[in-house]
């Protein structure tokens, strides 16, 4: 019973915080709410008996990436978003590209609902596919990551490197001479 209570508390916190992230006018609050959402997610990982994943979630997302986010938001000192005229209109009545975005959002929600309905039908829990203990022990996790999923892992790291080089190239100012 206590597990169920903590699960719904953490899950509710994650959902509410995530929803509030996009509902904020002040980007600073958005960043902070995202951190809350990540922390709640880490709590869920602990409940799934995966403490290493939970701590990695806190260190990488809440600790490192969000500090970078905060840094950028502060550096740009983004003012509160002005509520423009069309911003207050109903999403579907907005001109041009915004209407397209609203339509896409509706499609995404439908897709998510469909996916969630299918998950309920699944019998086997996810852990059993990788051999139960695979996510709980750091040693096993490392073995799975660098052995079975080695290609995906290396491909991801190359992808990140490419993105980094791309960001440097795009951000670099042209030499005036």
């Amino acid at each position, binding site marked *: 019973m206590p597990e169920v209570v903590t699960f719904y508390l953490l899950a509710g916190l994650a959902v509410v915080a995530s929803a509030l992230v996009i509902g904020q006018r002040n980007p*600073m609050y958005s960043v*902070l709410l995202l*951190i809350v959402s990540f922390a709640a997610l880490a709590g869920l990982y602990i409940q799934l008996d995966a*403490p*290493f994943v939970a*701590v*990695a979630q*806190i*260190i990488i997302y*809440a*600790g*490192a990436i969000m*500090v*970078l986010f*905060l*840094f950028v938001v*502060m*550096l740009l*000192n983004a003012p509160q978003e002005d509520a423009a005229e069309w911003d207050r209109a109903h999403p579907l009545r907005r001109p041009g590209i915004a209407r397209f975005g609203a339509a896409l959002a509706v499609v995404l929600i439908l897709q998510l609902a469909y996916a969630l309905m299918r998950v309920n039908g699944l019998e086997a829990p996810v852990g059993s596919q990788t051999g139960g203990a695979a996510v709980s022990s*750091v040693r096993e996790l490392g073995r799975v990551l660098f052995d079975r999923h080695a290609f995906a892992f290396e491909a991801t790291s190359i992808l990140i490197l490419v993105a980094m080089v791309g960001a440097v190239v795009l951000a670099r100012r042209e030499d005036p001479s």
Partner: protein
Amino acid sequence: MDLRVGVQLAIIGLTFFMLINASALLVLAERKIMGFMQQRYGPYLVGPHGLLQPLADILKLLMKEELRPKGADKWLFTLAPILSVTAAFAAFATVPWGAETTLFGLLDEPVRLGVADVNVGILVVFAITSMGVYGIVLAGWASNSKYSLMGGLRAAAQMISYELAYATSLAAVILLAGSLSLREIVDTQASTWFGFIPRWYVFLQPLGFIIYVIAGVAETNRAPFDFPEAEQELVAGYNTEYSSVRFALFPQAEYINMATMSAVATDLYLGGWHGIPFLDQYGLSWVTFLLKVGAILFGYIWMRWTLPRYRYDQLMGFGWKFLFPASVLNLLVTAALILYFNA
């Protein structure tokens, strides 16, 4: 409730109490040692040899008026110091500070000295300390003042830069110990080489230890790396607009972070509570631990009052161009040697 659970709870309470007192004692130690280094007495009037000075300081801070600038963000301005000090206390939760003890035979089964024993303990400490920077960054932003904002920005940049070197030097020790639990890491350092050299990781990881200490100074925002509050440039940096209790929480968090940093360094590199066999016999291993932590803390204070502050760009250059590559090299060499000797 049986006795053992009660004792364990008492130990948790004691840990909290020790941390609160550590911050007060460190303030006094800092001022006394600073006085000594500058050839004067330091605080001397309140209590014998100024021992009650921290109490007077706290009373003074409590009595002051709490101010909040008009343009400040109401919620975040209050939240920031709370966040700072909470993260500082919470980070100590998985740090063990003594061998398992039966309290001189009082209990049948031994209890552990420390709050919690998690099998990813060292990562938990790292995760929570890295959350502590939000307090400083938010304080800087919420104050709505340019000096505070600069201080907060610097804290964020400094934290990102030095966390890398810090984590990489930790990883080398984790490789050697083959465990992420701080208690297990300490226990792998219990024996000795040739019967007299203690098997501490500081001897295997001298470079790693130096990197850890330097990165630790930067992480706790202490001089010579105290750029978030560099007073010549930024008045008082991130805490410029703070007063009274809200202000007091920032230095308290800083001193507790120092204590945590030193306790973790003791556990990782200096063999934790092992080293004085005479004390081990009588179940006083924690005295050894406190002595080692005290020595590191003295080193921190010593550093603060003898070294001049760096320049900000030098700090970033040093972190990225020297400290981080050095820690990666240290990790690679350690990994290669472990493979070589274990194969």
